[in-house]
């Protein structure tokens, strides 16, 4: 079952063809491919601090990188890239992968309690998709020289973050619908532009992830439509969930632009395509008509249409709350980390057994060949 990262994210650096039916598609962009050498293949993180001194034509490499970015073309795993670009990507992709994995918990709690078999199947499949997203993303990070086990250790030791939204509790089944509508919706706003991210494996992973997120988001909204057609108690559950998740969802886009220190460099590298505030505005503009259609009230007294701007005005999220949640003091931080840590630790003997078995098999094959 394990995906080989290089195999899964093969880029134009390695010549390849994709066949669809009878048509043969060649790589769209004819990249200039550097010859594989000690700084462009393999485990790069440990070498990242020394290779620039060894590189004979550092300026030429930087120039080539800059030109690739300027032409809106993709950087691939074997291409030279600046240390900062690599580190920023590893941090962002790992954080994204961790979010998918921790994000399984709030909704996963409801699989065993889903009130119909159809909803049970939908939710089970959705949470499974999130595990799959985590796998693609860890694999994309591995193309940069990171290691999944190491990233997992960083997560459970609290050295790497995941999205703050998953530190809120899911109190009723309506939360499953509202998470689909708001949280997956906000994730889509964030992630669709990442399909054009300058790093090839990340951008390609995002294409598939966004398709699945869109499906989840529609399922969430469809659950809410159904519940709003049900009993008064169900309508109250939906409104309650909307009230609790609205502001945390707006915080998913990160701090306001003037307080987001890493954004400018990420925009210049085209890892990131739009500012936090722009994406937040888009999310609000898209969600307001959907709330009307559903018949729920968004809990913001300042929310109104601004004719002059052609966009909605809205209130300011409680940034102190975001700071509290990000620094580990949200309602469920401890519980989420504890669950992830326990699963990892309790699974250690299983992973050790699999490794030991593989080693024994290899030794037996070798003995068999020698005999």
């Amino acid at each position, binding site marked *: *079952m394990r995906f080989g990262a290089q195999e899964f994210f093969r880029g134009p650096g390695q010549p390849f063809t994709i066949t669809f039916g009878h048509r043969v598609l060649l790589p769209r962009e004819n990249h200039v491919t550097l010859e594989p050498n000690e700084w462009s293949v393999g485990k790069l993180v440990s070498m990242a601090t020394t290779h620039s001194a060894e590189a004979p034509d550092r300026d030429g490499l930087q120039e080539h990188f800059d030109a690739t970015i300027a032409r809106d073309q993709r950087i691939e795993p074997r291409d030279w890239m600046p240390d900062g670009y690599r580190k920023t990507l590893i941090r962002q992709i790992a954080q994204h992968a961790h979010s998918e*994995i921790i994000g*399984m*918990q709030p909704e*996963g709690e409801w699989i*065993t*309690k*889903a*009130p*119909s*078999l*159809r*909803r049970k*199947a939908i939710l*089970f*499949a959705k*949470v*499974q998709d999130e*595990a799959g997203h985590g*796998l693609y993303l*860890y694999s994309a990070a591995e193309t940069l020289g990171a290691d999944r086990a190491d990233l997992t250790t960083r997560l459970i030791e609290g050295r790497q973050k995941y999205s703050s939204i998953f530190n809120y509790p899911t109190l009723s089944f309506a939360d499953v619908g509202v998470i689909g509508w708001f949280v997956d*919706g906000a994730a*889509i*706003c964030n992630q*669709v*532009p990442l399909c*054009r991210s300058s790093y090839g494996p990340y951008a390609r992973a995002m294409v598939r992830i966004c398709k699945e997120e*869109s*499906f989840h*988001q*529609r*399922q969430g*909204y*469809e*659950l809410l439509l*159904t*519940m709003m*057609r*049900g*009993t008064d*108690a*169900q309508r109250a559950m939906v409104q309650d969930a909307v009230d609790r998740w609205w502001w945390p969802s707006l915080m998913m886009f990160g701090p306001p632009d003037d307080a987001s220190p890493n954004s400018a460099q990420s925009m210049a590298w085209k890892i990131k395509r739009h500012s936090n505030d722009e994406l937040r505005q888009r999310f609000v503009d*898209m969600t307001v*008509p959907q709330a*009307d259609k*559903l018949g729920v009230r968004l809990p913001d007294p300042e929310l109104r249409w601004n004719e002059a701007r052609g966009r909605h005005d809205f209130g300011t999220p409680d940034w102190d709350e975001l700071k509290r949640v990000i620094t580990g003091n949200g309602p469920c931080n401890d519980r989420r980390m504890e*669950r992830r840590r*326990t*699963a990892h630790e*309790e*699974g*250690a*003997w*299983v992973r*050790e*057994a*699999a490794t*030991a*078995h593989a080693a*024994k098999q290899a030794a037996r094959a070798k003995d068999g060949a020698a005999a």
Partner: protein
Amino acid sequence: MSDDHVYMTLAEGHEDDTRWAYGTGFEDPLHGVDTTVPEGVDAGELADVCVALADDALVSAQRLAEWTTRAPELEEEVALANIGLDLLGQARLLYSRAGQVDGTGRGEDAYAYFRDADDFRNVRLAELPNGDFAFSTVRLLVLSSWRLAQFAHLVAHPDPVLSAIAAKGVKELTYHRQYAAEWVVRLGDGTAESHRRTRKALEQVAAYFGELFTAYDVRDEVAAVLCQVTGAAGLPMPVYRPLPGAGRAGDHTEHLAPLLAELQSVARAHPEATW
């Protein structure tokens, strides 16, 4: 370049619900299938077979769902959910078939959510708590081998609906058995600790073998599979013991009622609701 996507189209008006997966208000997984019971088939017996197999699948799927976010590796998260989803799908089709032929016209959710433990007909092995990964894997090996053998026979069942459900299930169960067998071999052969845990799991599971071999005579087929897998894993074949009572007659361990209480909690709290 545009970042347009389906999110923006959520609130668009449409004439019908076809844009939603399977439509909304979807209740009958066998919609459009000829559901007449063929002559010579006893409808009551057919319904009993369907409910028993559906209960095994639903209870197993519930236990597999409990692994979510607790599996030893991400690949196992995906695989265990896959198997759980397959079994949940089998349960839905079988409940629907039972509701058509037992004269009640009940839908799948009536069986899953509004029967008590006494009315469930699953074997007790399915309802035992998950234990560690070794126990869950050994149980999966036994239950999937047993279910696969039954389904392989049911493909020839005179009821075309049950036959079709079985034919679909055979493909799924073949993978479940393969997955479980690979892990039992890894764990049996891996480390001293994994060997010890797997050996213990086999003994625990063997205590519930007794009631598996009643409906169809599949004992030899299942024993052959277990013999092959335990042989490759370097594990001793466990000893069968008789087990008084029968899950198929409504006898259960103390573990089924809490499992159902959780499964049914939301549905029963809102009996008038639509989901």
